[in-house]
């Protein structure tokens, strides 16, 4: 006689109309005949499987194939050019170099320092790098400082958003 635990996988299979082999089907029938809980479980499984099968198909945008063709043929399409994420990724290294160069010029560091040493040496200042090590500063503030060079410079830690 099948236990409820052993019956569970067979119930899952029967619930969605998949075929069990003859012997497994007979053992499940025998178990179900004497187990209210597993009969309820079968009914629940059938109900959930039917609802999921009825999940409406997903619409696909009309541009899907054209966008894909552009990618496969290696031609950047208008939609790709308009995608800011593409440009963000492509320009990230350039931005990083410019940011580093600008910070070095502004700080006048005489010798190359690691980013961490540089940040420690700038502790107390409002540079973006020093803010990176301040756990109370939100990413918004760091980004704002990187972009504007000012951020929350005029305020104290209590002013950090």
């Amino acid at each position, binding site marked *: 006689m099948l236990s409820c635990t052993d019956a569970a996988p067979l119930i899952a299979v029967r619930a969605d109309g998949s075929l069990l082999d003859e012997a497994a089907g007979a053992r499940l029938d025998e178990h179900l005949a004497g187990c209210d809980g597993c009969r309820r479980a079968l009914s629940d499984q059938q109900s959930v499987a039917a609802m999921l099968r009825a999940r409406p198909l997903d619409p696909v945008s009309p541009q899907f194939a054209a966008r894909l063709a552009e990618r496969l043929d290696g031609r950047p399409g208008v939609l790709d050019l308009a995608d800011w994420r593409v440009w963000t990724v492509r320009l990230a290294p350039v931005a990083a170099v410019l940011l580093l160069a600008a910070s070095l010029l502004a700080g006048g560091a005489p010798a190359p320092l690691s980013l961490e040493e540089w940040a420690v040496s700038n502790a107390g200042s409002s540079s973006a790098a020093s803010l990176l090590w301040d756990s109370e500063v939100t*990413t918004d503030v760091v980004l704002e400082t990187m972009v504007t060079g000012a951020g929350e410079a005029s305020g104290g830690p209590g002013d950090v958003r």
Partner: protein
Amino acid sequence: MDADRALVQAAAAGDREAFDELVRKYQAPIVGLARSLTAGSADAEDIAQEVFVRAWRSLSGFRGDSAFRTWLHRIALNVVHSHHSRASRLRRFFQAPAPDQPPELDAPEAAPDPSDLEGNILLRDAIDKALAAIPQELRVAVVLRDVQGLDYREIADLLRVPLGTVESRIFRGRQRLRPLLEPLRGGR
């Protein structure tokens, strides 16, 4: 016998029209898979695009050990996994903790009517939100079986787990979904 064999062989030889035919056949299921595994994410089409790009680039290495559909679904699961990892890294980077609670299910007051467009959207969203509230490994198994219609053997091959594990995950996944889908049963 893989129903797609002729198209796959032609596409593997570089025939773009044959590949376009495969794209037309599978774009809706792959977008659906991406959407139902990412809580109805707006990125689903981007994920699907990436799936087909990877498929096209790897097609020459496809040996036909499994059906093309199974192989394509495996690529899709990998891309969805990468999407989740990237989203998780970004969340950590921007210090936004993942929600402790499963997403709130704002199920429609009455079961949506599947015959109207708005009802379809509501129904699909409600199902995707319910799916998002169960553990990933159960969600993947249930979606592959009940939404995508893959058979148990295909799912076991795809996930590289024993058949009994697939059956058990599907049983437990449906059990977890039952109370979450209960509000949608009104009209059935």
